[in-house]
């Protein structure tokens, strides 16, 4: 009886891992899309509105509901409430705070990191270029993420169940 319970727990766990990995894939697509949308708004705020960064980030945080919007809201909080931290430090701290919720790959995060280094630190035209560049990369990343999702989502899920079954069979 106990054996049966253990085995079913094994199958359940491996299925859950499969579903979790598939979920991460979907979530990455989602977050990249959200980031792109937010960047577009930010571009307008900076390039046409000359809105100060903390105000722009606040607005972005309020408009969206996803993880990325929360990231920007978090950063806006640090921009307003810390004693002269550099913009980059505020951005880093916000990313550290949101880390558990971000389903992004290392390469995406490297771009986010770069974004923190350049945002706010130069004139409008330069900011515009930086944001455009980042958007280009993210669009590419989103495309890849879509393909990956398409190819691997089902695979992860089935692999999870089947893997669990395989281990069970081997154990019996």
């Amino acid at each position, binding site marked *: 009886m106990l054996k049966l319970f253990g085995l079913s727990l094994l199958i359940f766990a491996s299925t859950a891992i499969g579903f979790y990995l598939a979920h991460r894939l979907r979530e990455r697509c989602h977050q990249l899309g959200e980031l792109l949308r937010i960047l577009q708004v930010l571009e307008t705020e900076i390039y046409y509105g*000359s809105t100060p960064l*903390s105000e722009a980030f606040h607005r972005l945080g309020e408009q969206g509901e996803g993880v990325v919007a929360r990231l920007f809201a978090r950063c806006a909080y640090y*921009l307003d409430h810390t004693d*002269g931290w*550099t913009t980059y430090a505020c951005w880093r701290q916000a990313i550290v705070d949101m880390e558990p919720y971000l389903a992004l790959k290392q390469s995406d995060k490297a771009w986010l990191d770069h974004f923190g280094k350049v945002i706010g630190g*130069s004139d*409008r035209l330069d900011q515009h270029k930086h944001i455009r560049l980042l958007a280009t990369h993210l669009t590419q990343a989103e495309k890849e993420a879509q393909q990956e999702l398409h190819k691997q989502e089902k695979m992860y899920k089935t692999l999870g169940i089947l893997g669990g079954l395989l281990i069970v069979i081997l154990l019996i």
Partner: protein
Amino acid sequence: MDSRILSCFPQRIKEALLHLPLPLLEQIEEIRIRINQPIEVVLGSHSYFLSEDGRLKKEPDRFIVTPADGEKILNLISRHSLYALEEELKRGYITISGGHRVGLAGKVVRVDSRVELIKHIRFFNFRVARPLPDIGKPLLPFLMSHNEPLNTLIISPPRCGKTTLLRDLIRLLSTGMKDDFSGFRVGVVDERSELAGCLDGVPQYDLGPRTDVLDACPKAEGLMMLIRSMSPQVVACDEIGGKRDAEAILAALHAGVKVIVTAHGSSLEDIRCRPDLKPLFESSVFERYVVLSRRKGAGTVEQVMDAHHHPVQLRAGRRKNYA
């Protein structure tokens, strides 16, 4: 001292300043920050250096501003957004909340031999703004007739308080005097963001309840824009000089709007000699000229003259001894 200035400094500088005795703190006129140099504090005509434990010394102190401090200050005054300060970086100063000014210096970037911006900002001069309410009050009766303002030109060399005077006159005209006149709608074109000290378009100085401000707008265009859009009864602007300014003022007068402006110069003759302003004198548009000097401190009124350049006498029963 205004907490809005203090909030522009990193913690350790803020703490050193807050260690100063309160009366001293209130008297500070300028705080000058230079990277790798001690902090200079200017009170009146004396300059001191700030020590870490909050004392003022005559000799340079060991309390040095680090490059990291400079970075922090820049972040705090720009609110992390250098791109929003393009115009300010061209002019070399930023207006912060409370109407205080921060002068900037560093490395200048040029495009087509014009100053494009200052980057690597390494020198900061925090100039504490202190409103002097009612300095225009004694002068006001001279600039009104039958409770209507007269077209006025304030002539003054730099640093003699012309902007401060103009600001107060705007406030008084806009507020109105209880017994004499109710307020006027005043339109202000504030090209250098000095008169109103706007932050995000909101005046940081009190300009009265009936004042509309067009911030950072070129005077000539701004005057016409205001007249078309805000129907002011009085328009005011600082430091006229160009040909187009003169034309815009004439246009304003033809629109039936009263004008109060200032110009750099030490006497009426100085101004009359300026070729660009000639049209204004040919049609003798100004009904009052006020000449300022520093003889008895900033804001000393030397003369008030009428349209024919005669000194103005007040009618009996009104206040005398204005200077």
